[in-house]
C-alpha cells in the first residue's frame, strides 16, 4: 500500500487526487511551480515541494525537477494526473530508477500507446479496426501522406493529446502552413514535433471506453461520448454514449477490453474510437494511458472512484472489481468551464476569481480548484472547473445541467458557462447523439 503520494500536476486534478488519497489515509505531497504555491491544491496537500519556475517547460514538464522533488519528499509513489508528463515514459522510467511507484501503466504500455503510430500498430495487432493514415517526420513526408489519405485530413501530434498540435486541413494549399503550426505546437506541448496525417471522417462521433486492469485481468466501465469538441478540445462529455445500438456498444466495449488484455494493462486507461454516426462502424483511434479529464461522468454512473482504483492497483493489489460488479445507473454529463471569452473566439481570459458560486445539491458534482480568490494563471490551460450532473436518465441530466448552469456565477474572468447554457438548449443536443461537426455548425449558425 502507498504511504506517501507525490502529485506531479496542478489545478483541479491535483485537488481531486489529493481528496481521494486523503480519504485512503495516504500522505500527500504536491509538486508546485512558482505560480501555484497558493493554489487550492497546495492548500489541501499535506506538504508542497517546489518543482521550478512558472513556465511548465521548466517545472511540470521537467522530468528531472519532478523526480528530484518526489525523491526528496520521501514519497513512495507518484501520481501524474493528466496532461504534462502523465504519459511520459521517461518519467515512468525515472520513477522506477528512483524506487518510486508510478501510478500508471508499465513503461511498455506507455510506449505502445504513447504515440499514435505505435498505438495504431498495436491496435491492429490486437485485432481492432483503424482509420487510413500514417506518420510524417517532415513536410515532404506529410505531403506524401496527404496524397494517400486525400482531403479533408487531420494533422495530429504523434505524442499528443488534448487537441494541441492538431489541425484540420481542407485544401492542399493550406497544408504547408498548417504543418508548421502543428509541428510547433507539438514540440512545445510534448517535446516531439512529429505529426500524424489521417483521413478525416466527415460524420463521426467520438466514443471512448473506460478500462481498468491489473496486469492480468481487465474490465470496462462503459462508454463515454465526447463528440462536442472545439478544435479537438472536448467541451461536453457524457456517459453512457447516447443513441448507440446495444450490439454496437457491446462490440466497442469488448474491443477496448481486448486491447487492454493484449497490453497486460495495469491501471486506468481510456480506449478512444471514432464511430460513424450513420453505420455505427467504429475505428480505434488511440488509448490514453492515464486518468482523463472527463473521468467523473463514469464515476457518476458507476459509483466507482477511479483514482482510488488507480492507487490500489499501483499499490500492488489485484483488481477487486469484476465485470459483473459494474452496474451503471442513469446518465451523467460533464461540461468544462474554461476561463475563455467564448463570444470573442474563445480568447483566453486568465485572471483571479474574486467571487465564485458553484452549483450544489443532489446529482451535482463540481471538480474545481477555483474558489474565492482562486487564480487561472496564463501559463497553463484554461480549465477553471468541471460541472458534472447525474440524472436517472438523459432528459433528467440535461434538465439538471440547465438549472445548475443557471446557478453558477463567477466574477473576475470570462468563462464558457454561457456557451454551455446555449448548447444545452440546442434541440440537437437535447435529442442526443450529435457528431463531431455539431460544435462547428452550432458556433457558426
Amino acid at each position, binding site marked *: 500500500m502507498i504511504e506517501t503520494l507525490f502529485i506531479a500536476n496542478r489545478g483541479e486534478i491535483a485537488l481531486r487526487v489529493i481528496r481521494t488519497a486523503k480519504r485512503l489515509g495516504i500522505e500527500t505531497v504536491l509538486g508546485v511551480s512558482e505560480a501555484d*504555491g497558493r493554489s487550492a491544491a497546495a492548500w489541501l496537500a499535506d506538504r508542497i515541494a517546489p518543482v521550478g519556475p512558472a513556465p511548465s517547460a521548466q517545472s511540470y514538464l521537467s522530468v528531472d525537477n519532478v523526480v528530484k522533488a518526489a525523491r526528496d519528499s520521501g514519497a513512495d509513489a507518484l501520481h501524474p494526473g493528466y496532461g504534462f508528463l502523465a504519459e511520459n515514459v521517461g518519467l515512468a522510467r525515472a520513477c522506477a530508477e528512483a524506487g518510486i511507484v508510478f501510478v500508471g501503466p508499465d513503461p511498455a504500455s506507455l510506449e505502445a500507446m504513447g504515440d499514435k503510430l505505435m498505438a495504431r500498430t498495436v491496435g491492429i495487432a490486437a485485432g481492432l479496426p483503424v482509420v487510413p493514415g500514417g506518420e510524417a517526420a517532415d513536410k515532404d513526408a506529410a505531403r506524401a501522406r496527404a496524397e494517400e489519405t486525400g482531403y479533408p485530413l487531420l494533422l495530429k501530434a504523434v505524442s499528443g493529446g488534448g487537441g494541441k498540435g492538431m489541425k484540420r486541413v481542407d485544401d492542399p494549399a493550406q497544408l504547408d502552413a498548417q504543418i508548421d503550426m502543428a509541428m*510547433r505546437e507539438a514540440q*512545445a506541448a510534448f517535446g516531439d514535433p512529429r505529426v500524424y496525417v489521417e483521413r478525416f471522417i466527415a460524420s463521426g462521433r467520438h466514443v471512448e471506453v473506460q478500462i481498468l486492469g491489473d496486469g492480468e485481468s481487465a474490465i470496462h466501465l462503459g462508454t463515454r461520448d465526447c463528440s462536442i469538441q472545439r478544435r479537438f478540445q472536448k467541451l461536453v462529455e457524457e456517459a453512457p454514449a447516447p443513441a448507440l445500438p446495444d450490439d454496437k456498444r457491446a462490440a466497442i466495449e469488448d474491443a477496448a477490453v481486448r486491447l487492454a488484455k493484449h497490453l497486460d494493462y495495469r491501471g486506468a486507461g481510456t480506449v478512444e474510437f471514432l464511430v460513424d454516426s450513420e453505420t455505427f462502424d467504429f475505428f480505434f483511434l488511440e488509448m490514453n494511458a492515464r486518468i482523463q479529464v472527463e473521468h467523473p461522468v463514469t464515476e457518476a454512473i458507476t459509483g466507482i472512484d477511479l483514482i482510488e482504483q488507480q492507487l490500489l492497483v499501483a499499490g500492488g493489489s489485484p483488481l477487486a472489481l469484476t465485470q459483473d460488479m459494474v452496474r451503471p445507473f442513469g446518465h451523467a454529463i460533464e461540461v468544462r468551464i474554461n476561463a475563455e471569452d467564448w463570444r470573442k473566439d474563445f480568447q483566453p481570459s486568465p485572471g483571479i476569481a474574486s467571487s465564485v*458560486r458553484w452549483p450544489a445539491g443532489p446529482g451535482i458534482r463540481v471538480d474545481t480548484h477555483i474558489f474565492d480568490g482562486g487564480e487561472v494563471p496564463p501559463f*497553463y490551460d484554461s480549465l477553471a472547473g468541471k460541472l458534472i450532473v447525474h440524472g436517472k436518465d438523459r432528459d433528467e441530466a440535461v434538465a439538471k445541467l440547465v*438549472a445548475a448552469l443557471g*446557478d453558477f456565477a463567477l466574477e473576475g474572468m470570462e468563462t464558457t458557462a454561457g456557451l454551455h447554457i446555449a448548447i444545452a438548449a440546442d434541440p440537437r443536443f437535447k435529442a442526443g447523439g450529435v457528431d463531431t461537426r455539431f460544435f462547428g455548425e452550432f458556433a457558426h449558425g
Partner: protein
Amino acid sequence: MKGDLPLTLDDVNEIVSILDGSQYDRLDIKTARFRLRVAKSDEGDGWTQQWSLEDDAPEAEAVVATAPEEIEIPEGMTAIRAALPGTFYRAPSPGADPFVEIGDTVEPDTPVGIIETMKLFNPAAAGCSGEIAEICVENAEMIAAGRVLMLVK
C-alpha cells in the same frame, strides 16, 4: 498545507438536502481554515456553494504585470498591441528568422509574431499598414494583453 477539508463533496450535497427540507435558505460556516456558504439560488430551486480557503502562506509576487505599461505613441506612429496575455515570440520556431524586422513593410494581415497563451499559439497580425519603426518587446518575453509590441510608421 494549512488546508484540511472535513467536508467531502457528498457532505455538501447532504447539507443541501437537509436545508432543502427546512425553513432555512442559507448556511454560513467559518472556521480558521475555510468559509463555506451554502445558499438557495436567487432564481429557481437550486442551491449554490461558495468557498474561501484561509491561507497563512505569504502573498506570492505577481508573476505577470496585470496592466500593460503605457508607452507614449509618437506622433505619426501606430501601435501593434497584444490581443492576449502570454509569451511573445518573434519567429515561427526557435532559430527561425523573425516574422518581421525594423524597416519591413506590413499590411493588416501580415503576421508579426506568435503569442503563446494557455499552451496555444495564437498568431499576432500587424492590424495596420506601414513600415515597422520599432520593436518594443523581447523575444520570449511575458506580456500583458494590450502591451505595445511594435510601432509602425
